[in-house]
């Protein structure tokens, strides 16, 4: 499995938005932690990391122990430290917020400890005693990897199937590069796989190349963690012009290859979620002069994080609120030249006769990702509602021995949610298998 990335890929120009701590800075911040009892930061972490304990370990210069505390709850704690929206999770719940003091920088402390573990090559986990059971994790992203690692620790034989080339899922191909670059995610996957015995099959598509029945004949349990589909596109006039592409697709290209945007004068990103906010900031970071965020609602209606939008604004991104795309125009080379928007009212309803045209030679569509479609056809008992796989609280689907977690289950949340769901499903799978269950046909 060659996971080498080109050195000159476009994301190489980005620097970390949040700088790493030095030893002294980390210890000073760790010593500020109040070491709350029954701390709200633990409650607000989807993976339930014991934050006060790992921070106290940093303060006491037990960095290896701090990292283990993190990995015990979240095996992707290194990337989560960088990509988690801590402002709305652990840091947002820090009790210091109630006394007008700066909250503890939990994400930066988590990065300090987990980076140290990576740089030093510390590993903490060994495969459990062989149970003779075989589990397949479909998809190579955070949910599957977290499930695979937990299952391996429990002694099961684990296979991960990835349809693409790179492991890590959106952690590798979709994270804003000023938070984490692709190579970091890939080395995290290598570190995770160092537990040994996790079989990787990449370039294999389920169910096209390998059917669910094939999997059921080979494995005792199936974990589905294959995320969402491709970017949703628009069926509007000239929406298929060159230069109109999905935002997730664009971000992946930027992270994995040396794309060139130096000729782009005016870029528009359509959407109001976090993918849109990542995309506008990345376009500015790549040097695009004019970047517009076009959203059909108002500023307060965006689903993207307010702290990310605040940064985007200071970086020079211009908003166009209440703007719903109506049509695209293309030049003689059929390259996009402008987008015309229908103006909307406060209830996101069209205002008759009001339109606006903005010039553009690059348009990214961040209006959601396609749902699962027919991917799960052939799994009797598994239900899909609103494009999401239906499970119980532990991730069990209606199909015997088939579990799911991550974006395909929750519709698209954070990496940390995917890890939590993968881990939880793995524990449920373990109970299922140890109780004599199997999905084998």
């Amino acid at each position, binding site marked *: 499995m060659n996971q080498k990335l080109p050195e000159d890929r476009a994301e190489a120009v980005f620097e970390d938005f949040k700088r790493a701590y030095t030893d002294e800075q980390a210890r*000073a911040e760790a010593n500020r932690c109040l070491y709350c009892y029954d701390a709200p930061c633990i409650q607000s972490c989807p993976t339930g990391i014991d934050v006060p304990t790992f921070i106290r370990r940093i303060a006491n210069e037990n960095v290896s122990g701090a990292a283990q505390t993190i990995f015990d709850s979240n095996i992707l704690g290194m990337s989560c430290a960088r990509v988690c929206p801590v402002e709305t999770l652990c840091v947002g719940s820090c009790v210091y917020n109630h*006394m007008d003091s700066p909250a503890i920088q939990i994400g930066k402390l988590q990065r300090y400890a987990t980076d140290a573990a990576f740089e030093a090559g510390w590993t903490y986990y060994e495969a459990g005693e062989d149970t003779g059971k075989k589990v397949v994790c479909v998809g190579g992203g955070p949910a599957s990897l977290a499930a695979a690692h937990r299952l391996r620790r429990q002694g099961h034989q684990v296979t991960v199937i990835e349809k693409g080339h790179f492991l890590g899922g959106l952690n590798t191909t979709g994270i804003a590069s000023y938070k984490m670059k692709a190579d970091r995610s890939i080395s995290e996957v290598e570190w995770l796989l160092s537990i040994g015995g996790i079989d990787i099959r990449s370039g294999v598509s389920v169910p096209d190349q390998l059917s669910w029945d094939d999997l059921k004949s080979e494995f005792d349990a199936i974990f589905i963690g294959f995320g969402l589909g491709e970017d949703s596109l628009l069926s509007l006039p000239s929406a298929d012009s060159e230069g109109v592409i999905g935002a997730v697709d664009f971000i992946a290209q930027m992270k994995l290859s040396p794309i060139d945007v130096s000729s782009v004068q005016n870029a528009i990103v359509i959407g109001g979620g976090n993918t849109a906010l990542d995309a506008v900031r990345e376009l500015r970071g790549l040097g695009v002069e004019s970047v517009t965020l076009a959203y059909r609602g108002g500023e307060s209606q965006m689903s993207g994080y307010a702290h990310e939008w605040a940064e985007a604004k200071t970086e020079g991104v211009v908003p166009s609120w209440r703007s719903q795309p109506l049509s695209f125009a293309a030049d003689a080379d059929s390259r996009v030249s402008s987008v015309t928007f229908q103006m909307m009212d406060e209830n996101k309803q069209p205002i008759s006769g009001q339109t606006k045209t903005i010039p553009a030679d690059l348009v990214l569509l961040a209006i959601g990702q396609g749902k699962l479609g027919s991917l799960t056809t052939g799994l009797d008992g598994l239900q899909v509602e609103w494009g999401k796989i239906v499970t119980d609280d532990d991730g069990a689907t209606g199909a015997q021995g088939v579990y799911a977690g991550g974006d395909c289950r929750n519709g698209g949340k954070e990496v940390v949610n995917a890890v939590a769901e993968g881990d939880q499903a793995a524990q449920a799978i373990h109970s299922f298998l140890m109780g004599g269950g199997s999905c084998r046909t």
Partner: protein
Amino acid sequence: MPDLTSNTAGIISPNPFWLASAPPTNSGRQIIRAFEAGWGGAVWKTLGQPIQNVSSRFGGIQWRGQRAAGFNNVELITDRSLDANFKEMAEVKRLFPKHAVISSLMVETKEEWKEVIQRSIDAGADGIELNFGCPHGMCERGMGSAVGQEPAVNKEITSWVKSYSSIPVLVKLTPNVGDIVPHGLAAQAGGADGVSLINTIKSIIGVDIDRMIPEPVVGNKGSNGGYCGAAVRPIALHMVAALARDPGFNIPVSGIGGVTNWRDAVEFIALGSSSVQVCTEVMLRGYRIVEDMIDGLTRFMVEQGFQTIDEMVGKAVPAYSEWGDLDINFESVAKIDPDKCIGCNRCMVACHDGAHQCIHPSTDGGIVPVVDESECVGCNLCEIVCPVPDCITMVEVDNGFPEGSWNEHLTTGSTIRPKKGSHGYDMP
């Protein structure tokens, strides 16, 4: 404006802030800079037969990110010649005639004492301080704390010095004793004009656990040194106060031990010090710290209506009581201000694990813990651990019992209030 002039056993200085005998007073050039910065007095780095020092010499305790909360040293007395020191002392006094220069001395024989005292007087020193306190190196040679720990020797050498000295004599006491009072009384009996305390506390500041060598590491070994800095202040305050309230002790005190700012100085003065001496904080921050010591003390005196330092000396001594004379019927309980509480639960865990199990989780689903006042013993632990200023306060409870002490109870059978927080201890 209040008058900051200080008089310690006849040694007059423009303010009560002296540099203690230590590295900051190693040379005339340093002391000139210190006086220019505002220090009122300086006790010269102890003079005697020049010694040879080691590298390294200092160690600091890092505690929760705070550097040098405690400090220690294995440095000895001056390593410079007596000629150079006395020449510089004379020059300092020529330039700063109104500042106090105290000559700290440590020698062995009677003849040596006579010589260094006369040379100090000739150099213009305002007083003599006898170093009977150094707990490392010099005591192995029969000096320093080896003298200070033996009241009879202390008294005898003090009386020699007094017979040779026409200027005030302070005896610097070592804290490395069980009870400071007999040592202060011995100095007084020897004729001392005053005492200064505390010298450093015999200590090992830490261990290099990678090399398994006590710190500070000198080559491949370490030795015990003298502990000082902010961490020792409570010990020093007690020793100063123990002398100040002893009815048989009636000579002035120069207070030393962990003074870092004007507040610390006021505490020492309130417990009986006429002046305070500072070393560690100057080693960590420089002579300039005296600027706020003077400013803060001045503002405090204006606010409190004190005109002179003398008015404050010993002001808190009458309230320093034996435990047995405390009002055992005084009762207080913890109150948590729900508007200020941030929900960290530190009070709860501290009370449960470290006190009397009377603070419990919120019962209404909120973040504010609940104090069971019927079990709260009023110990203060929760108030100490609470990170929010004024969130937990200890509130007096009117329990109807008249003021009364344990000693009174023993002698007169007076009523004492029932105990709280004992829980019956019904272990399974």
